[in-house]
C-alpha cells in the first residue's frame, strides 16, 4: 500500500512539473502583450512613453529572459507567492483567498450532491430495472448529461426565480453572514453544477450495478439467505462503485469547467469567473496561478480517488 501511494505521489509530482512548464510557456507564446492589453484597457498608452512601459515591464519581471522568469515563478510558487495580477493590481494569493473558498464551497456541495444523489438514483434504477423508477430515471439522466449547464441555469432562473419567485435570481452571500439567504442563493447554482454529475453518476451507477448483480458472488450472497438490502449495499455496491469513482474524478474536472458558466450566470464571485476574465485580458499571472492551483487540486482529487480505489478493491491494494 505504501508503495502504491508512493508511486502515485511521484507520478503526481512529475505531472505537476509538466503542467507548470506547459502553463507557463503556453501563456507566453500567445500573441499579444498583456501589458498592452492592460494599458489599452485604461487607454494609457498614448500618454505612455517607452521608458514608462519598460518600467512596468520591470515591475512585473517581464524584462528578464524567459527561463529566468520561469524559475522565478516556480521559486515563488514554492514559497506560496504566486505574483501580482496586472489587471487587478492585487496579490494573486489575495485574489485566490477571495475566490477559491466560494467555488470550493459550491463545488463541494455540488460534488456531494452529485455523488450521493447519483449513486442512490442509479442504484434505484438498477435494482428496480424495468419498473417505473427506472422508466422515469433513465430518460431524465439522459437529459441531465446532455443539457448544457448554461441553459439549465437560465431555465431554472426563469422558472424558480422569475416566475415562481421561490428563490433569488442570483448572487452569493457568505453562509457565515446570512445562512438562510446564502442557502437560498446556492440552491439553483448547485442544481446546475451537479446536474451533469448526478446524471452521469446515476447512469454509470445503474450500468455497473447491472453488471454486478448477475455476478456469481451475488448469487452466492442470495444463496446465503441475506436480505436484499444487505446484498445490494454490502455485496453489490462496493463492487459497482469502482467504475463510478473514476467518474467522480471526471465530474470534478467537469465541475471546474461548469463553475465558469454557472458563476457567470448566477453572478457568483468565484474562481471560475476570475479565470475567464483573466484569460480574456491575458493576465498571465492569474491564469498561471489558477491553472497551477487547479492542477494541484485535480491531482489531489485523483490521488484521493486512487486511494479510494485501493480501499474499494483489495486487488489493487495488494498488488
Amino acid at each position: 500500500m505504501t508503495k502504491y501511494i508512493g508511486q502515485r505521489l511521484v507520478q503526481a509530482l512529475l505531472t505537476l512539473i509538466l503542467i507548470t512548464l506547459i502553463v507557463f510557456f503556453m501563456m507566453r507564446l500567445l500573441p499579444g502583450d498583456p501589458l498592452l492589453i492592460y494599458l489599452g484597457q485604461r487607454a494609457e498608452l498614448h500618454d505612455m512613453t517607452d521608458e514608462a512601459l519598460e518600467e512596468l515591464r520591470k515591475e512585473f519581471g517581464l524584462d528578464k529572459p524567459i527561463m529566468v522568469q520561469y524559475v522565478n515563478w516556480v521559486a515563488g510558487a514554492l514559497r506560496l507567492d504566486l505574483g501580482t495580477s496586472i489587471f487587478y493590481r492585487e496579490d494573486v494569493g489575495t485574489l485566490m483567498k477571495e475566490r477559491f473558498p466560494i467555488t470550493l464551497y459550491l463545488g463541494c456541495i455540488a460534488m456531494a450532491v452529485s455523488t450521493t444523489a447519483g449513486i442512490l438514483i442509479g442504484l434505484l434504477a438498477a435494482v428496480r430495472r424495468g419498473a417505473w423508477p427506472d422508466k422515469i430515471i433513465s430518460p431524465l439522466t439522459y437529459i441531465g448529461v446532455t443539457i448544457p449547464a448554461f441553459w439549465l441555469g437560465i431555465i431554472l432562473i426563469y422558472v424558480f426565480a422569475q416566475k415562481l419567485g421561490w428563490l433569488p435570481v442570483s448572487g452569493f452571500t457568505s453562509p457565515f453572514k446570512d445562512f438562510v439567504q446564502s442557502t437560498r442563493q446556492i440552491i439553483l447554482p448547485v442544481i446546475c453544477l451537479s446536474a451533469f454529475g448526478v446524471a452521469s453518476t446515476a447512469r454509470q451507477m445503474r450500468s455497473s450495478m447491472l453488471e454486478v448483480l448477475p455476478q456469481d458472488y451475488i448469487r452466492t450472497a442470495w444463496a446465503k439467505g441475506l436480505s436484499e438490502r444487505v446484498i445490494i449495499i454490502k455485496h453489490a455496491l462496493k463492487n459497482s462503485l469502482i467504475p463510478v469513482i473514476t467518474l467522480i474524478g471526471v465530474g470534478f474536472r467537469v465541475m471546474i469547467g461548469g463553475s465558469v458558466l454557472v458563476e457567470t450566470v448566477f453572478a457568483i464571485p468565484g474562481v471560475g469567473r476570475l479565470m475567464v476574465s483573466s484569460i480574456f485580458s491575458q493576465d498571465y499571472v492569474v491564469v498561471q496561478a489558477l491553472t497551477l492551483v487547479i492542477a494541484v487540486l485535480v491531482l489531489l482529487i485523483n490521488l484521493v480517488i486512487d486511494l479510494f480505489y485501493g480501499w474499494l478493491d483489495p486487488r489493487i491494494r495488494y498488488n
Partner: protein
Amino acid sequence: MKNKMIAGLFLLLLLLVAVLPGCGGKEPAVPENVNNENMEPENQESEEPAPAGPRYGGVLRGIRATFPNVMSYIPEMSPTDTTFAQPYAEMLLKYDDGEQKIVPELAKSWEVDPENLTITFYLQEGVRFHDGTPFNAEAVKWNFELNLEAGSLTDGDYIDWIEVVDEHTLRIHVKDFTNQLYFNYGWSMMFSPTAFEKAGGGDREKSIEWARRNAVGTGPFKLVEFQRENYIRYERNDDYWREGLPYLDAIEIRYMPDPMTAKASLLAGEADIWLEVNNVEHVKELEEAGFKVNWGPGMLMSLCPSVRNKNSKWHDLRLREALEYAIDREALANMIGLGAYEPLHQLAVSDWPGYVPGYNPRPYDLEKAKALLAEAGYADGLETTILCSDNKILRDTATAIQGYLDAVGIKVHVDIADMGRYFTAAFAEGWDELLLVQSGINPDASDLFVHFGHDPMTFRTGDIYKSEKYLELVRKAIKAEKHDEFIDLIKQAVVQAGEDAMIIPLYRTRQACVMAPYVHSNYIKAHAAIWNEYEDWMEEH
C-alpha cells in the same frame, strides 16, 4: 483623464460584448423613428403620470456587467473604475450634455488666459472630504501632483508649475496653450490627501495599496463596501455640499456579467436599475415589459485603412473613396443595431457641436465605387484583410462589409484576432490593411484629437491617412481661443477628413440604462461617463 476615460470606453465595450451570448437571429420590428428626439427621456416621462417630485430615501439596487478594480488611486484607474467612482468622487468641471457645454462642479468657475499661459480654477467653498478634511487648493494641487508624478494626467507635460493662490484659488502655469487644457485638467477626480497619507503612515506603497481598495472623496455618497467583482455599496453623505442632496439613502451595485440573469433580476424585482446595457434586444424586451430606458451615446464604429507601409494601396484616395461608396451604412446600422444605431457619414455624430448637417460625401453607390476602382487600376478587383477582434458586433460588421465589398470586386479576408493580437495591432504595432474599431464619443467633439489626433503620432491611429490640411485645421482648432471659432474649425476638420476619406465612418452604437418605472435616474442620460447620482430618486414602490 477625460480623454482616457472616453477613449477607453471602446475597450470596455469590447470586453462587455465579448461576454454576451449572441442575440437570436430574429429581426425585431424596427422602430420608425430612430432619431435622438425620440430617445430623449423627457418624452418618456411626459407619458407617465407626473410624479409628485423627488422623494427622499430608499436604496437603489443596481446591476452592471463590468466592475471596478481600483477605487481611488487615479494613476491606475480605468474608465470603468472612474464611472464607479462618480457617486463618491467629483471633478473640478464636468460636461452638461443638454447645454452642450462645460459646467462647474468642484470649481465654481475658471479662467483661461492664453496670453499669460495660465489656467485658474476658483473652488467651491465649504466643501469637505468624507473624512472631514477641507477640500481646498492645496488638496487639488496634491491630486494633480500625484497624477503628474505617475504620468497619468492628460496633457500633463504642458504644465510648468502649479500655484496655490489662496485657500480656494489654484493657478496652473502652462508652457504652451491649447483650448483643451482646462477641461483635461478639470476632468480629474479629487480625493482626500490626508486620508491617503494617513493610510500609509509614511509608506507610500501602503498608501497606494489602500487607495486601490478605499476612497475618500467629496461626492454625494460615501464608499462603504467593495467586494471585487461582486458588490459595491455607497451610502448617503449627510454633509454633501449641494444643499439638500442627495435623495437616496444608499446605492448598491452588483456585478452581473450574464445579461439573461440581469434581465431576470429586473423582472423578479431584485434590482431596480441595470446600468450600461449593450444588447438592444434585451433593452426592447424590458421596455415592452414596462421598464424605463435611458439611451446613451455608445460608440463610433469605423473602418480604418492603413497607410503605414509606404507602398500601401490605401494611399490612393480613389480606393478609400471606393470603400466608402461600396458600403450601405443605413442598411448596416439597421442590421447590426436592430434599428437603434445611427448610420454615420462623417466623423461627427448628429448631437455633436462639430456635426456638419447634411454632410454626406459618399452615399451608397456601387457604380461609383466600381468606376473609382477601375480608375485606380483595379478593374479586376483587389484583395484585402479586415482585422477585427472576437466580439459579436465587430464580427458581424466585418462579415457584412465583406459582403458589400464583394459586390464591387474587393475580396475581403476577415481576420478575427484574439484580444491580445487585436490590441497589439490597434494600440502599438499597427496593422496592414483595414482595421475595424469602436471608439468612444466625446461630448465636445474633442474626440477628433483623442482618436484621430492633432499629431500623426497619436495612439492607435498613427496608421491612418491624415492630410496636411486636416492636421493644420486640427492644430488651429486646439489653439482657438473662442468657442465659436473652435467649433467652426472642428467642422472644417470634419469636412476635410471626409474629403480625404481618412476613415470610413459606419455607425454609432447605443448604450442603455434600464430601470423600474418607479426609479428616476439620470444615468447615461447626460453622457456615457456621467452620472449625476445626487439627483436620482425613487418613488414609493
